[in-house]
């Protein structure tokens, strides 16, 4: 077979570049290209693109794998979250927000099976945590001493019967709360402080999803548990100490769990 009687299609040229042609055809195309410089230039261009892509990103695969991507660690985390108090099967997705090193929280990634506005809510919750937790003089709009007023005010603004959890039993005092703009309208934000000044926040906003499993995400400095219950999304954020945060989140969950409260 001579090269002249074997017309070469553009598809074949791509397959040639990608090593997808059978050996005999590979040779035929090579010969054909030798006689067709314009196409040869095109092919060379595609190869150059591939080289540049590999030059740009190839080295990533040689980097040490970060600790948080180690399988052992992920398995451990997954097992412990399997003991979750909400008890239902985990959604196949994890978190909606990430932590960029020193930059703190940033609303970026989102994942599979994520209820429509849930991710936006958790991202906003973390932004709020980051913003207000460092605030010394004006961390809240309404002080914790006006709990009744705050409950009424925020319930009205969210058009939802809110409960402001009492976390005294686990050593957290209510600093106060504020109203924030959220992705679905108003959001309520409460701040608590522990004996050594560590702060935890609860962010509540109406969610489109009736309920979700509990999720956990941690970064270098902050972590959060978040879930949706009875159409209200909650994000409990605090320092990256999982056990302590889990205790706080669990206490919050038990107090806001309306269906549970009705049963008891």
């Amino acid at each position: 077979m001579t090269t002249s009687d074997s017309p070469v299609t553009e598809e074949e040229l791509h397959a040639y570049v990608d090593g997808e042609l059978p050996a005999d055809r590979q040779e035929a195309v090579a010969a054909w290209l030798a006689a067709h410089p314009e196409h040869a230039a095109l092919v060379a261009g595609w190869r150059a693109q591939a080289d540049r892509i590999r030059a740009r990103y190839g080295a990533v695969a040689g980097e040490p794998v970060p600790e948080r991507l180690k399988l052992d660690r992920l398995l451990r985390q997954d097992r412990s979250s399997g003991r979750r108090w909400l008890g239902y099967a985990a959604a196949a997705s994890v978190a909606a927000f990430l932590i960029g090193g020193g930059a703190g929280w940033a609303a970026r990634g989102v994942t599979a099976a994520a209820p429509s506005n849930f991710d936006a809510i958790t991202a906003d919750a973390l932004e709020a945590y980051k913003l207000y937790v460092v605030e010394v003089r004006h961390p809240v709009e309404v002080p914790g001493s006006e709990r009744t007023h705050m409950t009424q005010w925020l319930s009205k603004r969210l058009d939802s019967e809110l409960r402001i959890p009492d976390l005294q039993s686990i050593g957290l005092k209510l600093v106060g709360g504020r109203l924030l703009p959220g992705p679905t309208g108003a959001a309520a934000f409460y701040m608590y402080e522990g004996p050594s000044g560590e702060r935890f926040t609860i962010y509540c906003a109406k969610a489109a999803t009736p309920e979700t499993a509990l999720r956990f995400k941690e970064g270098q400095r902050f972590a959060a548990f978040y879930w949706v219950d009875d159409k209200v999304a909650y994000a409990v954020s605090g320092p990256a100490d999982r056990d302590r945060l889990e205790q706080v989140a669990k206490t919050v969950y038990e107090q806001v769990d309306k269906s549970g409260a009705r049963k008891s």
Partner: protein
Amino acid sequence: MATFGQNVEATIPALRRYARALTRDSDIADDLVQDTLVRALRSEHLFHGGEIRSWLYTILTNLNRNRLRSLSRRPMISSLEDNDAPDLAGPEGGGRDIERALATLVEDQRNALLLVVLEGLSYREVAEVQGVPIGTVMSRLARARAQIKIFLDGGRPALRRVK
């Protein structure tokens, strides 16, 4: 279990590479990989043989699609550089121009191109990952390459990023 875990583990460096090229941000990329791994570990029972590698690429590709969708609902985070012209520094621009060229691609085309040229998947494997016939993979590749050529040649991209 050991075999499954070992196979997953062996793929992590490649997943990180693919995710980095998809997201152009190392933190977002590693989050994507982490979510992929968590999901894979939880769905091990759903994995019925075949190539673990392709399966992981499939999960990561789908997670990234969801990520992009919800970013488009939340426009605050789009990168300004996406709107820039190619680097004047050209090929010496530290790879920024190829990054930007990739950013101008339609998502499915970018995925197909990266899976083939960066990850070394066969057309058949990419077809599996993308859930389309091989012919579709090939036309995505062809369009991706044509688009990158236009971008690198300094022309205005024929297609802006479609959201």
